[in-house]
């Protein structure tokens, strides 16, 4: 048992989990609350990563880039929810999926026009290494884990403690009853959607230094987001977190064992879970 190999692999896995969790949150919660599989979440991820790149180029400040990425993601999310998605609520699932996927394609086309086709590198803002059990771990990875954890705790706090959160949870249970109580459900949808888009944007900005920022980065991430939400179950935040943790470790530890496993193993895990439980680990039952 070689510790110098496994501890970095596990920490690496957790940081991947953090990114996956942030990015898939919108896909999952959008399904739970609005019954829309909003595939265009990956667009906010892409745009936010590009904003980070631009800000780093212009000002040299990564954190400003991260902030602008999150804000831009939230603004686009707001525009999309109020202008496009509001027209598709209540339509059949296949209709909404095709609409959001085509919007994602339009967005990718626009990104290509603005930033070009060539992948752009973003340098890591923190280059410090930290020693854990004698192993050198990049501080930036630990920061990603901490951020994702903080986002999860914050969202749980909002959901459990505030009136807004209670309304959201009630909306996931039954949108009709919530509306009957006199709560403006459209506003709940918009606020939730902005939070979810902001999280996807945060994921994109945090992931920018770890991958090359390119127009198709959203497609690569879409695959992992799919696997995460299918495994965890659409509509469950807890399920998304747990499946992100599983997938991250499977990719990292599996990849350390045998490199092709990094790509194939998550799919195999998802496949077997779906075979046993068609709604994923914590899927919302009822209208699908």
């Amino acid at each position, binding site marked *: 048992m070689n510790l110098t190999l496994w501890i970095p692999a596990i920490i690496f896995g957790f940081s991947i989990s953090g990114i996956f969790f942030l990015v898939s949150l919108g896909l999952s919660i959008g399904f739970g609350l609005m019954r829309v599989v909003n595939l265009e979440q990956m667009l906010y991820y892409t745009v936010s990563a590009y904003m980070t790149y631009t800000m780093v180029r212009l000002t040299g400040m990564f954190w400003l880039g991260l902030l602008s990425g999150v804000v831009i993601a939230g603004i686009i999310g707001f525009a999309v929810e109020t202008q496009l998605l509001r027209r598709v609520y209540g339509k059949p699932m296949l209709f909404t999926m095709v609409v959001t996927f085509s*919007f994602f394609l339009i967005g990718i086309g626009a990104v290509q026009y603005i930033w070009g086709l060539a992948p752009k590198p973003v340098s890591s803002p923190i280059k410090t290494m930290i020693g854990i059990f004698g192993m050198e771990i990049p501080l930036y990875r630990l920061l990603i884990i901490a951020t994702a954890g903080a986002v999860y705790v914050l969202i749980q706090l909002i959901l459990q403690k505030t009136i807004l959160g209670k309304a959201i949870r009630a909306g996931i249970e039954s949108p009709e009853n919530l509306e009957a109580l006199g709560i403006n459900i459209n506003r709940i949808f918009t606020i939730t959607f902005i939070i979810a888009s902001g999280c996807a944007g945060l994921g994109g900005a945090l992931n920018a230094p770890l991958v090359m920022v390119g127009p198709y980065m959203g497609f690569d991430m879409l695959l992992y987001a799919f696997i995460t939400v299918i495994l965890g179950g659409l509509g469950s935040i807890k399920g998304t977190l747990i499946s992100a943790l599983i997938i991250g470790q499977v990719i990292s530890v599996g990849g350390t064992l045998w490199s092709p496993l990094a790509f194939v193993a998550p799919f195999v895990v998802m496949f077997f879970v779906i075979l046993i439980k068609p709604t994923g680990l914590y899927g919302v039952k009822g209208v*699908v």
Partner: protein
Amino acid sequence: MWKKTLDRLGPLLVVLLVTVLRYLFPNKISFFTEIAIYTIYVMGNNILYGYLGLVSFGQPFYLGIGGYATALFLAYVGHNPLVALLLGIGSGLVFGIVLGPSFIRLKSSYFALINAALCAIGVFIFERLLIDITRGNDGLWFRSNMSKLPLLDVRLPQSFFLFVVIVLFLVLMIYRHLDRSTLGTMFRGLQSNEEKLKFIGYDTFKIKWVGFTIASCFSTFAGSLYAINFGFVNPSLGENSRAVEVIVATLLGGSGTVYGPFFGAFAFLGIKDIVSRWITRWELVVGILTILVLFRFSKGIWGTIQQYLLGIQKRVSGSNDIRSPKGSRSAGAGS
């Protein structure tokens, strides 16, 4: 009466139209060959989308499977293109039967997502995992390995066009028969009310399984035809980003109809041909086109034509014929 005859002659008319157009525009032969192949591909998706009510973002995966089954056979094992095509269909059959039970149990949203994931895995397998036999992104070339068929030499574009047209005719006949058969009716029943179909006593699981398998057979068959047409395959055949193209083509033609796929393929490839002269990156246009078709033109081309024909028929037969028009069963399904 004339409508019934028209209905019976449908496949022949479609094939004649393609052939006539091919001779009117002799330098566009590869375009018309592609239309014929793409029609078969769109038919596969139409069975899923238009009949079963399932949306799949992973259709290119099946295209890739068919293409690689054909290419691997022709490159390493045999020389006969017909056997390679049969192998392509066989691969769809195998994948449909194997993947079917686990896939069709899923609700429509999960079905779409798992197919998209499968598609990305497929590209990875063709591109990197099996790089020793598929040659990765360089593509697998096999044109020189193909042998001549007794009557047609499929290596030549002209005779391959004829071959594809004959194949298209046969496939259209089969497809039309499927649409009129009990199975086709059950597919539609499944979409409108699955519970009731179960209540009557049909095994909806089996119906879906059969539908899924037929759809994957159509798609892999189109993939094999593509492979033989180009003489090589590379992983871009199964690319994920192209998944929505076939859905646009289905919608554009009119989903759930017999001749919709042909018109969809024709219109989609035509638009692509014209637009790609000015715009190199094609995603933007596909996306806008899809949203426009979904919101403003949901009947599709064939659906609109059918409505128009129905209007003429009503005017011809006058107001004394108040029965619902017969012989237009696919019109009702298109809605």
